[in-house]
């Protein structure tokens, strides 16, 4: 059975429960790991929300490419990647990554790998909106280090 990769870029919210049910459909896989990213409150500013822009077309290609790389490293079942765009409020869900695999080690490692590469390779940009102003989020060096770890392990 060919394992499916589902990639969705959407404005609307998603249900982790529904995604999980999709991922656990086959008895061939004994482990499902899911990750959900949320809009977090800033320490130094009154964040009221966030705006997410992306590069339509390239985003889907980049996420498909990252998923293909994960499949070369680990034995994986279905993969789901969902990323929201547009206006989001505090505590809203932004991103979902779910991976099914025969065993937990592959599912844990692949979900971490997918998030690390999503954060550094997929063309999304966050603009934080506070009560006073809005500004584009700067890329974090720690995200580059996180992805470098995987390259070192090749």
């Amino acid at each position, binding site marked *: 059975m060919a394992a499916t990769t589902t990639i969705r870029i959407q404005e609307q919210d998603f249900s982790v429960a529904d995604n999980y049910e999709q991922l656990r459909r086959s008895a061939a896989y004994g482990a499902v790991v899911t990750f959900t990213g949320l809009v977090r409150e800033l320490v130094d500013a009154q964040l009221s929300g966030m705006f997410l822009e992306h590069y339509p077309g*390239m985003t889907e*290609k980049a996420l498909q490419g990252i998923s293909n790389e994960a499949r070369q490293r680990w034995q994986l079942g279905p993969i789901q990647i969902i*990323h929201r765009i547009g206006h989001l409020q505090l505590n809203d869900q932004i*991103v979902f990554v779910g991976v099914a695999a025969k065993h937990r080690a592959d599912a844990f490692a692949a979900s971490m790998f997918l998030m690390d590469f*999503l954060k550094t390779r997929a063309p999304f940009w966050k603009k934080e909106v506070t009560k006073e102003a809005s500004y*584009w989020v700067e890329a974090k060096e720690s995200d580059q280090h996180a992805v470098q770890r995987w390259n070192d392990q090749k």
Partner: protein
Amino acid sequence: MMIRVLFFASLKEQLGTPNVEMETTASRVDELLQQLIEQNPRWKPHLQQGTLLCAVNQQLCDTEHPLAVGDEVAFFPPVTGG
């Protein structure tokens, strides 16, 4: 040849446009960047940001990447999704 150039996020706001269609003889991305700056001197500081990323036909690449007729070129700041 005609090349379509896209800009995203902070760069799009700095340049004041999401895209340009341009007639060019540039054979590589860096030559195209040079031509964009010559035609729009005000764009120079924004297009010379060292952290800028580029993609040709929706694949990340470096500025030595060759160009062909009908290519879609994009410039953007480091990505911040997730």
